[in-house]
């Protein structure tokens, strides 16, 4: 964010803190698109995403006095939105599993005859079929990991911003991101290099 935009954002936040709804609404308009997308990808359900979006901004409005400006407004909103999504997950599935996604071993890589995928990812990402595979793979991730990969690899936040948005430390972001990427790689390789799995199954 440029210093000019940051100054403008700070001015809006200052006015919102004084209770000026129009200034708050402008902050909503500037961030609602990416927050809606984040929630939709996180919860996979448009009506839940819509409800969470409303709760997120209402909560932001009520707590705007506590926004210290150490991060951008959007990182702060990502945090509130993600917290609300996790409250919903816990309500529906009270014991949120602390999944530890495994890493493959070096021996396993050798045995599976891992081969490079023969396409350019920037071109492949334009295909509707590939996008569908990518979307479906994300849904398979446990929520804790899904949130990290969405923020880092899809929405493009830095490690520090992701840590801030999720209320975890940077080390935890890196660990979860790495395991999530490997999990996704495994799913994608079952589509892009099915012979890898056949080698693993000894076919």
């Amino acid at each position, binding site marked *: 964010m440029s210093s000019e935009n940051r100054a403008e954002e700070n001015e809006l936040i200052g006015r919102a803190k004084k*209770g000026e*709804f129009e200034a*708050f*609404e402008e902050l*909503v308009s500037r961030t*609602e*698109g*990416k927050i*809606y*997308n984040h929630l*939709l990808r996180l919860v996979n359900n*448009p009506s839940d995403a*819509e409800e969470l*979006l*409303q709760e997120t*901004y*209402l909560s932001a*409005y*009520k707590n705007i006095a506590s926004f210290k400006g150490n991060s951008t407004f959007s990182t702060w909103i990502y945090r509130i939105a993600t917290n609300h999504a996790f409250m919903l997950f816990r309500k529906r599935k009270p014991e949120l599993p602390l999944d530890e996604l495994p*890493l*493959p*071993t*070096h021996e396993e*890589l*050798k045995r*599976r*005859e*891992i*081969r*490079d*995928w023969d*396409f350019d*990812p*920037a071109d*492949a*990402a334009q295909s509707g079929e*590939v*996008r569908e595979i*990518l979307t479906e793979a994300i849904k398979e991730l446990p929520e804790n990991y899904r949130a990290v*990969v969405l923020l880092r*690899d*899809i*929405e*493009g936040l830095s*490690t520090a911003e992701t840590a801030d948005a999720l209320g975890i430390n940077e080390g935890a972001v*890196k660990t979860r*991101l*790495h395991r999530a*990427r*490997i999990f*996704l*790689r495994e799913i*994608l*390789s079952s589509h*892009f*290099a099915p012979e890898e799995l056949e080698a693993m199954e000894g076919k």
Partner: protein
Amino acid sequence: MAYDKLSCKEILEKLSEYIDEELDPSMCDEIDEHMGDCPPCVAFMNTLKKTVKLYNTSGDEVEIPSPVRTKLHDFLRRRCTDEKE
């Protein structure tokens, strides 16, 4: 050999930081050296890089549907005005 195996495990754990250029240079050199002589690790790293790149380039936003936006703003105007009172 024991050193090599440990090194492989560490390398597999560090690959994302390597891809994101978040590792210190000495660790990068060690990974580069390993990659020079380990085709499975190279293929694994390349496919991991492609996984990341696919997600980096696939994240175009769905525009917030107009009724969702309208309901959000109506909801906030109503509730935030209540807060003030």
